């Protein structure tokens, strides 16, 4: 039951994210947009490029979707509404997101096209840049909750959400989450102007539809993760818990989608340089700072 509810909520979330994304990119709000564009994609040929690596080519789009769905399974919508409340929940999301990298690398290699391949390898580099930030920011969150249960993490924020308690970790995690979802300005693997779509360039028809769905679900789960780990998840006055979760998730997703519109794409070297030279020291400081807070306050 929980699983069905969670998947339903995810799909609704992905739908709203798709509407938001259309609004951000075209300036027109079209509530029916995702339905018509989805149908249109289903009606188009799904071209298989010449001499692809067939397994990689076919597996990449569903793998992206599955990776996003897996992460969603351990994120609570309300106290009782969680698919799997794992003792290693906070670690599990991270493990699931790693498969995003695998999926994109496969999508880059599989279709046998240069733009896609450059895109795929770019994301591999990007992963090196962001992955430490995700883990280290989550470490500080788990320290405060004294648990890796995602539900415990939410409860630990009853007095003060983590976004205020550890703002540095919040900002780092937020940016790293945008990198996981390859949203602009961190859209290095797809880079419309530089790679004509990169890892998505060779996918058409229903395969592209699956890939876009996977991306939308990924954005929702990342936004949900930000809300669970830093914004107190379902906690909030007046409204029912699930509504708070949904509101916070959508708000985070909207900010993520909007931010990239006003800045140019980052250079690959900067993603790595800033991730390691600035991000990791800051994340370590954050862990230290949270440790001091926990011991002293």
């Amino acid at each position, binding site marked *: 039951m929980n699983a069905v509810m969670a998947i339903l909520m995810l799909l609704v979330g992905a739908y709203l994210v798709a509407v938001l994304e259309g609004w951000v*990119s*075209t*300036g027109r709000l079209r509530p029916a947009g995702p*339905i*018509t*564009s989805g*149908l*249109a994609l*289903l*009606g*188009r*040929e*799904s*071209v*298989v*490029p*010449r*001499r692809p*690596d*067939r397994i990689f080519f*076919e597996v990449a789009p569903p793998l992206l979707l599955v990776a996003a769905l897996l992460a969603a399974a351990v994120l609570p919508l309300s106290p009782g509404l969680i698919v799997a409340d794992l003792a290693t929940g906070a670690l599990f999301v991270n493990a699931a997101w790693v498969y995003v990298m695998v999926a994109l690398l496969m999508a880059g*290699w599989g279709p*046998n*096209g*240069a*733009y*896609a*391949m*450059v895109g795929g*390898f*770019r994301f591999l580099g990007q992963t090196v840049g962001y992955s430490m930030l995700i883990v280290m920011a989550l470490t500080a969150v788990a320290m405060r909750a004294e648990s890796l249960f995602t539900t415990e993490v939410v409860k630990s924020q009853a007095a003060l959400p983590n976004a205020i308690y550890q703002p540095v970790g919040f900002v780092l995690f937020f940016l790293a989450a945008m990198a996981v979802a390859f949203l*602009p*300005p961190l*859209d290095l693997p797809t*880079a*419309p*102007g*530089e*790679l*004509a*779509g990169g890892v*998505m*360039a*060779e*996918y*058409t*028809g*229903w395969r*592209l539809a699956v890939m876009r769905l996977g991306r939308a679900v990924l954005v929702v789960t990342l936004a949900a993760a930000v809300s669970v780990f830093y914004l107190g998840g379902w906690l909030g006055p007046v409204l029912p818990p699930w509504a708070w979760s949904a509101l916070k998730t959508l708000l985070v997703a909207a900010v993520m989608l909007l931010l*990239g*519109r*006003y*800045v*140019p*794409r*980052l*250079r*690959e*070297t*900067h993603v790595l340089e800033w991730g390691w030279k600035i991000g990791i020291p800051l994340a370590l400081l954050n862990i230290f700072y949270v440790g001091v807070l926990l011991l002293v306050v």
Partner: protein
Amino acid sequence: MISGARQARLNFFRRLVARAQARELAALVVPDPEAARTMGVDLEAAGLRTSFTPRHADVLVLTGELPPGLKKAAAVAYAQMPRPRAILAVGAGHVSPLPEPNVSVGTGQEDVAAGVAELRRIFARSAFSTEAADFDLDAVRTQTEYVCPMHPQVVRSEPDSCPICGMDLVPREAAGGNGHGTHHEGMDHGGHDGGAGASHGEHEGHDEHAGMERGEQDEGHEQMDQGSDDEGEGQRGHEGMDHGEMSGMGYGGMSHDGMDHGGHGGMDHGDMGFMSMVEMTQGTPRSSDGLQMEWAEDMPFGPLFPGLPGGLALTLTLDGDTVARAEAEGVEGWAFAEDLAGPAEALAGRLARLDPLSPVAYRVLAWRALESAAGVEPGERTALARVGALEKERASSHMGWLSLFGRLIGYSWLESRAGTLQLALARAVDADEVARLRGDGAGLARRVEWTPLLRRKLGGVGVLTEGSERSGPVARGAGVPKDARTDEEVYRSLGFEPVVRDGDDALSRLRVRLAEVEQSLDLVGKAGETAVPELAADPKLSSAGSATVETPRGAAALRVTLEGGAVEGVELDTPSARHLALVRGVAEQQELADALVAVASLDLSPWGVDR
């Protein structure tokens, strides 16, 4: 019926899908959306989303008269588009080798909007049809040649054995049957790749059939869907074209089998068993980091690449994501200097058609050269009107560049805002209307200046070597106050001072153009006129004359020799032709994204380049 209908019987579901597709048309614009806006055509407003790749487009939009090279590139892109697909011609003439456009309209915005509406109707009605025809394009036909797995220099057109080692030659694909194919041969497809070719092909066949079951039973449809079932039929579907004429297509469809897939291809499916890495990479070019497996030879970025002006054919050899070699060419088959001979009256019109990105500047250039031949000076009013027209065009051209540049660097706000202003400028009818846009131009400049991360993105990218010949904004972005306008009386009387910025990189060029937009809009206001009166001089004489005009891209010089009212000899020197030589210097040994930014920052007009 649309020319690119998908073969299928219409049923309830497909009717629904076709209607959805009609609402969601995505367009691949040839040459590019900026060129369309120069003509005052706004495709977004007409209801077409612009697409970055032919793989995600359903409508090919041809704007204006296209040279043969671009038509060919458009045909390859069309072949890459998934069916159902259609063609919309906006003020385009003959489009062969493309099929006849499904809808042809003029260049007015209402015409285009009506054309898109018509396109939607026919899309909804006939996206699926049982009589769908294939698009057969020579450029994308696959040819097979035979090569020795151990000696890549041994290439035959028939099956044979190697004269050196006696091994049987293995088939591989050759580039398309045209002149371009030749210089790719033997480079992309290292010898190791050949072994994979044949067996991989068979393999494919099975996979394809397995992949067909996806819920649709009619066979005809599936057949079309997967044109690559076997190699021989490559030309039928658009699968085939991936290996076609590589420099002609400009999108991701190119093959890179040779350079990296050869690796796993050879191992997984090779006929000859194990092959070590050393053997496989033998004879392939050595890159600076010593990792040859990631070497990608001659990748086309253009002539239809989303981040570069349409028509500019940039060919990059990639070493991982570093550009090892760069080469840029203009529009293939475009009428150039030798075609400019003829009656003197028509010279201005012909010169203006030469570069659709800045027709006014070339028209004025022709007039000035003819006036210089006749030994007359234009009146003050004429001179002022020309200033107004030139500066309006400069502002509009810079806006178009900003929009394109915004797309390249992923700054979507800039892309859409600059596009809007470019369109407003293109549609402004008089000087007052143009001058009123000054506030918007200044606002855009301020906002771009304060954009976070922009300096880090552009600073130090595209620095030219000492002594490179620069002109226009590229020179002024290097701190050199080089501007043909400073020599002109009329500009001096308007208080003109060239805009100069230090830096000599993509950032300083961006700043120069931003400041010049404001300056140009100011000058239009002062000139008070944007309509250019016709030529004042009577060119019915035998003489020679020369003139220089500061086009939006730099100084263009023209020298004409007249013989009894007819143009005998023309010498044209365009800024883009000079700047094209800078491409190698700014792109090579740079990271791919930086190389593209550097090339784009030069604002090359592919039209102003002899090829």
